[in-house]
């Protein structure tokens, strides 16, 4: 086990908890709306943004955030305009972002700069700064307020968008807001936990919660709890085993998901009362 300064350890743990909370809360929407590939898109938008930042000699983080914000803003309207599933538009934008990243990297002299851009894609939990924590804390607070205030609208839309529209809800506004918040959650978390972990934190905790509950409210509550617990246990596993932190967290959340599938009460068949009464 490696000895880390306690301040570094605390900021890293806090970063993982906040990223776990933000990603797995938006995961409740992502899983229901079949937007699982949004993690790929946002990580590569950040990568292209970082490459762009290096190309024009500004901080790559600023470039990454600008691109991620831009993509999360245009994703919803673009899907609407193209009359395509959001997942299809995500696929289109994903390849477009990779192409842009390669073009930008082509203009950056030296491999060191390219490696800086690639770090955005992989992230590093030990590079969490106080400003990262502050940003994620503010975002997590906004996310909680959004879910509480618009819970009834979100439930109506997640059930059936057309029926929600027919009841007088401006579904387009909420749909875009959900896509935007998911994009922001990913782009804030990506530098801390990396593209791979962001993807796992969005999908795994919510998919685990889905195995146990029929009530969307409980999924909203338990998805972030499972996300945070996965992060903490994964962190601990990493410290005792020297596994990479990101991989450890993914491993733990995958174990939780597997256990959930095996023990899911949703698939259990009850004992037949008719047979009991006959015997």
């Amino acid at each position: 086990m490696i000895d880390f300064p306690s301040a570094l350890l605390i900021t890293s743990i806090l970063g993982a908890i906040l990223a776990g909370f933000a990603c797995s809360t938006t995961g409740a929407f992502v899983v229901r709306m079949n937007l699982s590939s949004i993690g790929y898109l946002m990580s590569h938008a950040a990568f292209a943004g970082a490459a762009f930042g290096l190309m024009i000699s500004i901080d790559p983080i600023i470039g990454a955030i600008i691109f991620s914000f831009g993509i999360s803003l245009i994703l919803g309207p673009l899907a609407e305009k193209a009359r395509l599933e959001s997942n299809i538009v995500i696929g289109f934008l994903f390849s477009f972002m990779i192409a842009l990243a390669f073009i930008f990297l082509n203009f950056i002299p030296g491999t060191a700069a390219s490696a800086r851009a690639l770090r955005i894609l992989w992230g590093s939990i030990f590079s969490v700064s106080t400003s990262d924590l502050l940003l994620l804390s503010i975002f997590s607070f906004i996310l909680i307020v959004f879910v509480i205030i618009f819970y009834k609208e979100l439930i109506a839309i997640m059930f059936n968008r057309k029926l929600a529209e027919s009841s007088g809800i401006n579904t387009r506004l909420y749909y875009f807001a959900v896509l935007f918040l998911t994009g922001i959650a990913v782009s804030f978390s990506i530098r801390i936990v990396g593209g791979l972990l962001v993807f796992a934190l969005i999908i795994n905790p919510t998919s685990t919660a889905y195995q146990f509950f029929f009530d969307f409210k409980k999924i909203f509550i338990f998805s972030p709890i499972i996300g945070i617990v996965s992060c903490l246990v994964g962190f601990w596993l990493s410290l005792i085993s020297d596994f990479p932190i990101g991989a450890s967290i993914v491993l733990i959340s995958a174990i939780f998901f597997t256990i959930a599938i095996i023990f899911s009460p949703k698939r259990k068949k009850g004992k037949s009362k008719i047979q009991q009464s006959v015997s």
Partner: protein
Amino acid sequence: MKKNSNIIELENIETIYEGEKSPVIYDINFKVKPGEFISVIGPNGAGKTTFLETINGLLSYSKGKCFVFGKEIKKHKSEIRKEIGYVIQNFEMDPLAPFLCKDIVMSGRTGKIGTFRFARKNDWDKVWYSMGLVGMIDFANRPIGKLSGGEFQKILLSRALAQNPKILLLDEPFSNLDYASRKQVETLLNRIHEKNNITILIVSHDLSFVPSRCKRIIVIDHGKIIMDGSREKILKSDIINSIFNGNGGKK
């Protein structure tokens, strides 16, 4: 704002889907007085659903004008929809979908409750009342995906009723229902109409289920209203026989 006694008024309406050249419905002139109970019948693909969704503004019309409560739907969509209960044609539901029946029924009141407001006791009372009305109160905490087609249809009807609507638009509410359930829903619709005097438009491709309180029938075929009259007149008409082959199917 149009001042007259009609609750719904369509003038020369034409609705075309995006990317299509020919309209799904056209030359639609239709007036409804408050409290009327109307059946909209026609074979599959005649444009009945398009007709309903033009009235509540889910589809925007390309020609003409549509007024509901004297206001043009294009300009007052959200406001008007809060007063219209809509039961969508049955759709497939994931058996593991994480929604409870009571929450789905409550979602019907979302527009009425308003943004930045939470459901209160009064809203839940409306939910319990409308679930009781369709005989589904015992299903309140059941997952929506575990219901049979008929039960699901009743929850959708209950959702629309929880809205406390002035107009009820029902798209094929008898589909997926067995004979007993159809009779139940028919009785229920008659009772709702009698008690609350709600304006009801019910779309069906089945001539055998026109609720007894429904006194007016319109027939849509190939996107046009071809008949509009009293129940007796329409059901005895020869044209009906030329459109339907007696069991609701297309000839």
